Structure formats: structure tokens, C-alpha cells
């Protein structure tokens, strides 16, 4: 999911110069991924919406410090993730994420081409295992696999070094593997 249309660079540059219309375009094209990010981090639709709105408003204020030509999406998502983080902390809770569909998912048993899709129960188990990870490992899994961000994007979004992304990913996968392969 590279999701960085070439327009982003031009739009961000215009927005940086104070063009509100250009910024609105950026809001329009990134609000879905921003909401998904905030929701997956908070587990609450209301908190996520707040975080997205506040994140965009702060991004607008922070645009003069945005490095021209660099990718807009991870920079924005970092601000949104910070907002989400603060909200989750202030509420002192993180509601568990749920799988779509609950029971009786049609085609639940249909094998994927790679045979990678496990049964619903196994997936619930895997999700529960993700939920039991330490917060920072869970954030890595969320960014890398649920949001499908690259290592570089993840490093930007979480404000950590790329090497740390690699090591935390490896650690999180090792913990999950214990559950999946038991």
C-alpha cells in the first residue's frame, strides 16, 4: 500500500505556503487511513474521530516544519498517532479490536491462494495474542501488518529508528509465533 499519489508532494508544498484548499484535498485523500490508524490504536470510533480532527488541525499548524518533498502520509499519521496515543492514555482504556462478521462468515472456510487464511477461531486467537502484546510491540504489528506501512513509514509514524522497527517486529513476531504454532 504505497498510497502516495504524486500530487501529495505538490499539495503539501502548496498547503505549506498557506493554501487551505490544497490542505483540504490532503484531508480528503488521507482521512480514511488516518481514521483507520487512530481507530486501530484506540479501539474507539469517537476517540479516533477526535484524534483525526485534532491531528489534521495540528498538521496544518506544523506544516511549516514539514520537510519539502518528503512523504506526507507518514508525517501526518505520526501526528494522528500521537493524538490517538494521548486520547487512549487519558481514557485509560483500549477497547479490544474485533473481527468483522462475528459468526457465520460466508466463505469463512474458503482457502486463500496461499493457504494462509486460517480458520475464524485461529484468527480470533491470533488477534487476541496481538492484543496481549506489550503496547509498543502491538503498535508495530498494527503499523506493519494492519495498516501495511513500510518499515520507513512505521519508523516515522512511531517516532523510532528503523533498526528499532526491525528489532521490535522480530520480537513481536516471535511472541505471536509461539501462539500460532503451538
Amino acid at each position, binding site marked *: 500500500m504505497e498510497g502516495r499519489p504524486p500530487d501529495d508532494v505538490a499539495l503539501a508544498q502548496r498547503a505549506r*505556503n*498557506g493554501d*487551505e484548499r490544497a*490542505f*483540504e484535498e490532503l*484531508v*480528503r485523500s488521507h*482521512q*480514511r487511513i*488516518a*481514521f*483507520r490508524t487512530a*481507530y*486501530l490504536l484506540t479501539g474507539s470510533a469517537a476517540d479516533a*474521530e477526535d484524534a*483525526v*480532527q485534532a491531528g*489534521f*488541525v*495540528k498538521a*496544518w*499548524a*506544523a*506544516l*511549516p*516544519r514539514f*520537510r*519539502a518533498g518528503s512523504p506526507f502520509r507518514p508525517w501526518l499519521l505520526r*501526528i494522528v*498517532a*500521537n493524538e490517538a*496515543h*494521548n486520547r487512549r*492514555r487519558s481514557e485509560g482504556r483500549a477497547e479490544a*479490536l*474485533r*473481527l*468483522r*462478521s462475528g459468526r457465520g462468515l460466508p466463505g469463512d472456510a474458503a482457502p*486463500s491462494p*496461499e493457504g*494462509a487464511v*486460517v480458520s475464524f477461531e485461529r*484468527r480470533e486467537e*491470533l*488477534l487476541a495474542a*496481538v492484543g496481549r502484546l506489550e503496547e*509498543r510491540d502491538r503498535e508495530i*504489528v498494527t503499523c*506493519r*501488518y*494492519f*495498516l*501495511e506501512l513500510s518499515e520507513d513509514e512505521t519508523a516515522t509514524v512511531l*517516532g*523510532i*529508528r528503523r533498526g*528499532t522497527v526491525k528489532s521490535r517486529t522480530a520480537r513481536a*513476531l516471535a511472541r*505471536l509465533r509461539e501462539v500460532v504454532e503451538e
Partner: protein
Amino acid sequence: MTELERALVSLGHELEVPEAPDVVAAVRARLEPRRGRRTIRAPRSLAVAVALVLLAALLATLAIPDARSALLRALHLGGASIELVDELPEVPAEPDLELTLGQRVTLAEARRAAGFDVLRPEEQPDAVYLGDRGTVWLLYGTPERVRLLLAQTPFHSIDPELLLKKVAATGTQVEPVTVEGAEGAFLSGDPHFLVLLDAQGNPVEDSARLAGNVLLWSDGGIAYRLEGDFDRERALELAVSLR
């Protein structure tokens, strides 16, 4: 990608995520018009030339004979060169200091993530942040009312393409100091702050701009920056008390 990684991606597709609300209108209503730009416009070579002239002028005013070399070395943080200029670019006050500092973490988390020994004064910090370039920030007070701010940045994580630029007004005093044998500098007086410039001379990030004085030093591959409302003696006391 391993099977587990593919399973996680596929799990991501199955997660129940509510429909994203359209926030365009709500965001638009909250935007404040932005006034003026502060990007440094001069071509880099010119900016550097100007900075060097100003640096020479500033250093000439320093009375201590070996101040120049000490200062240059002291401020040579992690391979990033530092320029002193006497004209402050206009920087809007950071509406949210926390945004500049990075992700809020616990001290234990910062220590685990940092990959170096994070030092702290005797007093427990009120907040800890992990920022860009592996910087660990310890904040005392609140983001709205900072008493003391300590930044620790490992050299190896400072992007060599970026110039760390010390911007100081002519009214800023720059005094070479040593912190337990490590060279440093104490900056006080008029407002001053650090900005990072990209290869084109555009600021990419400015540090928190506080009214306080700053003690800069480097030791063991880590650049330290202590900022607060203190005098030189108090700053040095705090610096050597770090454990």
C-alpha cells in the same frame, strides 16, 4: 513475507473498523490562517557565506583566546556543522510542544528504546518523550510551563545530510565550558534556538524554542542539551548530577 506475516495482513483486512467519518468540513472550520513564511530563502552557498562572516564577527567579539576552537569543537555535534548567525528567522511559537518532542513514553520505555544510557537528574522527570533521531527528551514541569528540558541525541542517528544550525542573536552570550572534562558551551541572554536545515537550507525541524538558557555538551557519542531558566553554575551542577 512469512506465513505468520501474511496471516497478520489478512487479519488486518478482517478487522471491524467503522466507516471513516468525513472530517473535511470540521477541520476546515478549525484551521487558522497561516501568516508569512519563515523558510530561509537564500541559496545555501550564500547562506553559508553569510553565516561564516557573521560567525567570524561573533567569534572576534569573544574575549577568550581559545574560545574559537573550543566553541567550534564543542558545538560540532555528531558531524553536524553549526553556524552562528545574528539574524533570527521568524519562527512561530510551537502551538504544541509535545508535537515537537515526539511520542510520550515512560522513562523505562525510553531507556529500552534508546540504545544508549539515558541519563537523568536526581529528580524524576514529569514526562519523557522519544523524538526524531533517537532523541530522548526529559521534561520537568508541564508542556505549557517548562521548568527544565533535557535532550539526549546519539550522534550516529543524526543525519549527516542535515546541518544542525545554532541560531543566536547578537545579544546571546556563548561561553565555552567543560562538563566533567567534556567540552561544551553555555548560551544565555537573547533568544536562541537550534534548527535543522536540509541540503537546500530549508528548516526541517526546529527545536522547542524556550525562553531559557541552554547548556550544550557532548560526551561518549551523545549530544546533550539542557535548557531551563538557570544560570551557568546551576546548569553545570545539573549537568554533572546526571546519572
